[in-house]
């Protein structure tokens, strides 16, 4: 094979002629493409494309693993939209997004803007901000469970020094979701910041310099030049951040298990509960489909917003 792939020297003998033809086939763009794509594309088709359709199929069936799936029409979807627990999980997921995304994105942008200067210790600071991203969700959750601990937890200790009474962060129905939001923002600032830093590098310096010469101060420059120019990047961050919240399973598993009173029960948790708790594969698939549809709609809305603004 290796030998055949070497371009043979020109010669009139028949074996060389055959070899040359073989070489031409094996060196054709189509052949190399097939050879190189065979494994990755088959795997991606099996892991990313086929499951979308199989999920859709399962969502119309009743399937509890030990008997083949039975056609179930729209009963799973009917359940998804009428059952109060599932409805609450959809509501909670959206609430989670609304509470985390705007603040988290804004903080990441401001930090990126501040870091995007030639200051001493820039790399060091960037690394510190990125550390929560590197840490796993399990480790992060363990640390925060300890910080949130009602007895001897760091947060209650710190709040105690300014006279705020201790709270039962993860078990108080009014505080549990916001507690998860705080951990989520803390854990995502680093990755969003890196994306913003990359975006900021692409803004031509002379534009900002020109605005400064024209009398814009730093704040005006940021709000009127940087933010509008970064719009595609901001949009990208909002979308990926939102999707990451929809995927946020580990925190809920580790910190609240959907409680108290379903206040932190999100869609991904509901899927996990139905499938791996009650073996309701069809029902879990229906919730997954709804989840996917919401994610796709959000993605498309933001692409449209981007295009319209750019056209204007």
């Amino acid at each position, binding site marked *: 094979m290796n030998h055949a*792939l070497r371009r043979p020297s020109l010669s009139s003998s028949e074996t060389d002629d055959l070899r040359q033809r073989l*070489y031409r086939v*094996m*060196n054709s*763009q*189509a052949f*190399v*493409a097939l050879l*190189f794509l065979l*494994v990755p*594309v088959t795997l*991606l088709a*099996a*892991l*990313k494309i*086929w*499951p979308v359709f*199989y*999920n859709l199929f*399962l969502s119309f069936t009743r399937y509890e693993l030990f008997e083949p799936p039975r056609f179930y029409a729209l009963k799973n979807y009917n359940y998804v939209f009428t059952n109060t627990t599932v409805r609450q999980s959809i509501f909670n997921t959206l609430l989670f997004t609304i509470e985390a995304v705007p603040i988290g994105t804004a903080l990441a942008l401001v*930090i990126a803007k*501040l870091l*995007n*200067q030639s*200051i001493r210790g820039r790399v060091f*600071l960037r*690394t*510190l901000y990125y550390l*929560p991203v590197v*840490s*796993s*969700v*399990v*480790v992060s959750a*363990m*640390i*925060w469970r300890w910080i949130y601990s009602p007895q*001897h937890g*760091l947060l209650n*200790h710190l709040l105690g020094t300014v006279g705020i009474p201790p709270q039962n962060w993860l078990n108080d129905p009014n505080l549990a979701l916001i507690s998860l939001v705080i951990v989520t923002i803390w854990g995502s600032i*680093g990755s969003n910041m*890196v994306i913003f830093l990359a975006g900021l590098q692409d803004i031509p310096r002379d534009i*900002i310099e020109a605005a*400064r010469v024209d009398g814009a101060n*730093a704040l005006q420059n940021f709000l009127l030049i940087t933010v509008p120019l970064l719009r*595609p990047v901001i949009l990208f961050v909002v979308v990926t951040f939102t*999707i990451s919240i929809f995927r946020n*399973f*580990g925190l809920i*598993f580790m910190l609240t298990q959907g409680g108290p009173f379903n206040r932190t029960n999100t869609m991904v948790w509901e*899927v*996990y509960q139905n*499938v791996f708790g009650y073996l309701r594969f069809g029902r879990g*698939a229906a919730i*997954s*489909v709804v989840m*996917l549809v919401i*994610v*796709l709609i959000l*993605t498309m809305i933001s692409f449209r917003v981007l295009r319209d603004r750019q056209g204007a």
Partner: protein
Amino acid sequence: MAANAAAQSGHPGSFKTWEARLPLLLTYVLLSIGAIVMIMPFVWMVSTSVKPDREIFGDTIRWIPNELDLQNYSDAFEQTNMPRIFANTVLVTAVAVFSQVLLGSMAGYVFARLQFRGKTLIFFALLTTMMVPFEVLIIPVFLLIRAFPLAGGNDILGQGGTGLINTLGGVMFPNFVSVFGVFLFRQFYLGFPKEIEEAAIVDGCSRIGVYWRILIPNSKPVMGTMALFAFLWSWNDFLWPLVVVKEDSLKTIQLGLSVFDQEQGTAWAELMAASVMAVVPVIFLYIFLQRFLVSGGITSGIKG
């Protein structure tokens, strides 16, 4: 940048005035406060992990313990079965990193350089899947792994047994290739000068030769980036191993920790010691590989 500009606007040749330094000072103050908040949980983790219990449950916050209690580490090491879960994780992660780099670079090369029928279709099909979170597909992928032919008592059609469920192969399976990797490599190769490859082809090099002898040796930055991301995903993965693995001896480090967390409840010193052990390799690897990171990967697809 704003601070720099302000600094330069001071009187030429004179020392920087207070006014000119103010924005820079403010930058430092804000960034430092932020950084302290960001790393405080980690400092608290390390601090707790070396404290004796009576300091942990004391009434005052002690960032630096009065006495060290390293017993917490050996306790956590034994109770989590650290050597085992560590070895499992290293194996699963090494396979994921190697495979994602190799398959990503191969597919990336094809999409960046070769022309063939159906290319656009395949490319956009893959592009679309980037929007689909893995969590949404966990049910079909679980059933796929369970029906893997000739594994775990399955017949050739994948029936009868449990397939790759409860095996390390099952844990690895979804991590062999990432769409992100394909795009990362494609983007990198698109920016690679074509002339070098054309010259090599004129000199008699085959397409596979171009890939192997020219692109691969010049892909170090993008490989480092891919390797780092593949490492982080695989090392930190939680939901998938949770779903696939039941047996203690097959657990990955994250899974082992989560079980340990639920068993130990409030043994905070041991829990934090175990957390330190799980996170330290990742932090070191990140700091080591950081300089290889190509920003192109992060912005690819959002430019233009």
